[in-house]
């Protein structure tokens, strides 16, 4: 059970840590969901075409970074409302994937792979979790860039006074979140060896709430992600034990996320 939870946790944590950069840089990033989906899709397509999982992962990350650039361009450079443009990304990706599927494979739905990425090892997953968290801590705490990111969120005028363009820092933060979400998406789809429309299943939103619940710090985010993954494992296991219809179980992540959001708000008030 715990090992299953840890395996479920990996993509969620990676996406949340990526989103942490944008959150700290003062960018409300609701596009996480769309970026994860683009990563999941591109990874499967590239693996299918090249036959190499490594190429798949790289493609997933690059596709998601491209989407992130589009998000950064429209929200920061064209000064769009960050929320509306984020929504746009979440709507754009499913329609783009449907379009590519249709013209590449003549299908608009499921794409299956021969091989799958063998992350069924809990120990390896745990290692991944810890190293990514450590990486985030180091970058945010001990590098100049990490400080710039935090400064962009707290007081961008200060950054500007140091001749550092806040918009540039925020753009880089968005691209980092894109890379992380691409990786997260690639891990989701390659582990299952299949792309299904909507495969991200609210992970981007859960990651966003995990960032809030974790109070925008890497280690508490790790714990928040563990709780969400545990809930996911529970609902996954419950499916076999009690008679709960599968479609109802699909609603659990959203209810749990709302609950998490409410709890966060209550605790923050105290």
């Amino acid at each position: 059970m715990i090992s299953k939870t840890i395996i479920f946790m990996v993509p969620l944590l990676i996406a949340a840590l990526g989103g942490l950069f944008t959150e700290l840089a003062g960018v409300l990033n609701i596009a996480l969901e769309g970026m994860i989906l683009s990563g999941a899709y591109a990874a499967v397509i590239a693996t299918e075409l090249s036959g190499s999982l490594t190429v798949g992962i790289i493609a997933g990350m690059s596709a998601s970074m491209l989407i992130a650039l589009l998000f950064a361009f429209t929200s920061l450079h064209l000064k769009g409302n960050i929320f509306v443009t984020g929504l746009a990304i979440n709507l754009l990706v499913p329609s783009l994937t449907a379009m590519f599927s249709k013209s590449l494979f003549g299908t608009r739905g499921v794409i299956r792979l021969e091989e799958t990425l063998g992350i069924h090892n809990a120990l390896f997953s745990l290692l991944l979790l810890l190293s990514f968290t450590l990486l985030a801590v180091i970058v945010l705490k001990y590098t100049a860039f990490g400080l710039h990111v935090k400064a962009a969120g707290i007081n961008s005028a200060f950054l500007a006074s140091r001749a550092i363009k806040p918009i540039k820092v925020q753009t880089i933060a968005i691209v980092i979140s894109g890379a992380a979400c691409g990786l997260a998406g690639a891990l989701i789809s390659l582990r299952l060896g299949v792309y299904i429309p909507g495969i991200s299943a609210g992970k981007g939103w859960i990651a966003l709430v995990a960032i809030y619940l974790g109070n925008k710090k890497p280690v508490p985010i790790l714990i928040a992600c563990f709780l969400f993954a545990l809930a996911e494992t529970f609902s996954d296991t419950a499916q076999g034990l009690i008679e709960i219809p599968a479609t109802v179980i699909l609603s659990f992540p959203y209810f749990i996320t709302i609950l998490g959001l409410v709890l966060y708000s209550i605790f923050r008030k105290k």
Partner: protein
Amino acid sequence: MKRTNRLFGHMAGTIITLVAVLIISIIFLLLFSSDKSESIYYFFAGPFLNSLSIGNMLSSFTLLVFSGLAITVAFKADVFNLGGEGQIYSGAIAATAVLVYLPGLNSFSGFILASLAAAAAGGMMAGISGVLKNRWNVDELISSFLLSNAVIHIIDYLITGPLWDKESYLLTTRTIDIRFQLLSFLRPSNLNSSIFGALIAVGLITFIFFFTKQGYELRICGMNREFAHYGGLNTAFYVTAPLVLSGALLGLAGSSAVMGIHHATIKGFYSGIGWNGIAVALIAGTNPLAVIPSAFIFAYLNQASETAMLKADFPFELGSLIQAIVFLLISSKIISDKANGIFALFPKKKGGIVD
């Protein structure tokens, strides 16, 4: 002082966005369709070619007026309602449940009760987000979205499980009795008498906004909540009330689709109404009357991409792509400033820079 709006920029920016959308649509048509000239012809002329497409366009116009108006109400009070899809869906299932399972209704009482149930279902769902916002300061834009997605899965379950019509080959509930079905026009298109309901709703909301005390207070809250608070207004009320009203209108979109078009709740029928409502509202600014032309533009674009898809073998729904592009560009301040610059070159001309 120049009248600017926090979110939506000016008319000029909207026009530039729409032009960009048209250009991008044409590029996609040229890139992906097998017969290019044919698909462009059907894209532009398709919606007006026969009474079937005109009727279907007006039918989707009806639903978009409801959903666009709903989102406009929320925007006017400066709150967000992202739960459109779930609220439409719950409105539809509530109306269907009333009409299918409640005995002894005649066509009038059935219509009234079903509409009330739909409005209540949608309004309650949106209202929860308002309560969460007031009570615990939970961001309504996230909570409304999450709640809607959760409820969608539960309604999916109801449709495919307990309420499933076993005689149908579709994933749908049982059909409502013929006496509850709205008048249809331009058969076999989807157009029906709920189009009048949608237009009446626009009139009512305009009246509430501009001719009632509550509407005035709602607008003050939307412009500056802090100012409204110091002025002694109950600002918490004007978070929940606009959300409830918004949800109720989306519920009505659902019930009008049930009574007018599908005569049952079909699994996933809400797609393309919920999010498009936001796009319609963004184009309309926060003006309820502007919802009418804005919904028409979207209904046209939807129908255009549909005819291009059917008649000219265009490979995918352009509609959702158009929607995404609108969202990407519509709120841009740079575009609206640039656009104003362009329109300012003709200073004597009226129009263009009107908010």
